[in-house]
């Protein structure tokens, strides 16, 4: 249960497939246009429930509660051996020496 005043993330459907622009490709037209917004919860809400939030600019927006105290977890990814090898070989090509 997220409490009133908690920082949360909500999700909503902006346009259903039928409401979408005629100009979009078929694969895009077959799915809805979705939106994610963050804000402070106006009333206690269960995860998955209908929530209303006040955003940082003071807008009041409603949607399904999908995340409590959302945070970022993007990273530098996995080790990419090709990048390191390319860099090592370019260094050796310019300055001499071996790459191993």
């Amino acid at each position: 249960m997220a409490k009133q005043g908690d920082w949360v993330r909500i999700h909503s459907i902006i346009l259903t497939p039928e409401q979408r622009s005629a100009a979009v490709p078929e694969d895009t037209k077959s799915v809805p246009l979705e939106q994610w917004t963050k804000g402070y919860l106006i009333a206690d809400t269960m995860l998955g429930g209908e929530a209303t939030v006040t955003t940082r600019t003071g807008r009041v927006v409603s949607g399904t509660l999908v995340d409590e105290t959302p945070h970022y977890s993007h990273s530098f990814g996995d080790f990419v051996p090709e990048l390191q090898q390319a860099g090592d070989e370019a260094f050796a090509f310019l300055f001499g020496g071996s790459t191993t």
Partner: protein
Amino acid sequence: MTKDNSFSAVMARKSEIIRAAVGVDYKQFESGSIAFDYEKMMASTGYTLVDVAEIQRGFAIGNTPLIELKNITTLVRKLSKSGLGARIFVKDEAANPSGSFKVRRAATSIHHAKRMGYPGALSATSGNYGAAVASCCAKSGLKCIVVQECYDSRGVGQPEIIEKARKCEALGAEVVQLSVGPELFYTVLRMLEDTGYFNASLYTAFGIAGIETLGYEVAQQCRMQTGKDPDVVVCTNAGGGNLTGSARGLHKANCFPTIVAASVNLKGLHMASDTQFNKKSFTTGHTGFGMPFSTWPDRSDVPRSAARPLRYMDRYMTVNQGEVFYTTELLARLEGIERGPAGNTSLAAAISLAQELPEDAIVVVQETEYTGAGKHGSAQLSFARQNGIKVSLGNPKDEIAGESIVLPAHPSLLHAVDVDLDHMRRSLITHAASTVDHAPTENDIAFLAEETKSNEAFVREALDQQ
């Protein structure tokens, strides 16, 4: 009375919403036919180059270093025929407050929005421009909303765009994220109407005037550091504003180098496709924006775009995704400068074209951008692998956008490819002709010659051939 907020009803109110949110009546520039008064529009900001530079100083923007890439130049000379291999310089725009040149573009807009009494600013962008607007709004005490196209229908987001969302939030903005689709513009119009915020569009005269200082600084710094003008300036090209503003600034410094556009080649990938959205490893600086915005600039979110790159472009080159990641690695490993991949698109092209030029020629790459989690070669290539893209070392010529990314197995394999610029010019001319129901007037023909940096004979021939 409740407003009709259906897609068609909101789109029908587009002109009045944009007029209120930009504070410019575009009708004053129109001729009633194809032509419009571009220079009148550019002058309509009321800010001169000196004013813009002063505004930018107030935001601690600009005067970024112009760095000679001596080791990359040596590498280029090892790959070139005797006597060839131009000196390469890069303007380190990552040193700006928001981490990219885009903050030059935001500064004039946000200064103007504040002066005009708007309570906040809104920007529709998945790129560095969001952080740029957020940075200037933070400094100006204005509220800020950034609207991003970020996720596919599986809810999977591009790591580069997620990092930009984080940065916007760090600078105080509200970030609204959407799934794939051009109807983002519909959402933006609704929000502009509801909030009364200024539309900090990338494509107003305010934005492009802001980039002129970049070109002006390039000319001044190059003269100061080398005693001569640059021979070539390479600009990463997407929406066209970077190239347009930089070229205009160079011209204002009475400096007329060859202007080269560079884009990442994403041939075959549809930009509005949900299933192809995460098959690309660049979210900007690519041909998916570069081509359509060059050949038809007025597809933007304002009636007349101030970004009109074919007016200034002398050459257009593409590089593959693998070549840009490789170049990013070269910049880190040979020069000790770690920067974001997308901004190095123009550097990749420069490494290739410098091999055609004499040793005393000067090539300036006019931007870098910040790097970080998500916005980094390892993050973007890992994401590509997760989405079924084959990543390898080999010949970048074999790369197929959406299927593979091939980093050069040797620096001699990095090779930028020329785009047929006359074909693009003809495309703009015939499209322009299709927007009116009469034959182009003499005034239109003169205008189209300027639009395409060609001449009236070329325009007439293109019109005859259509």
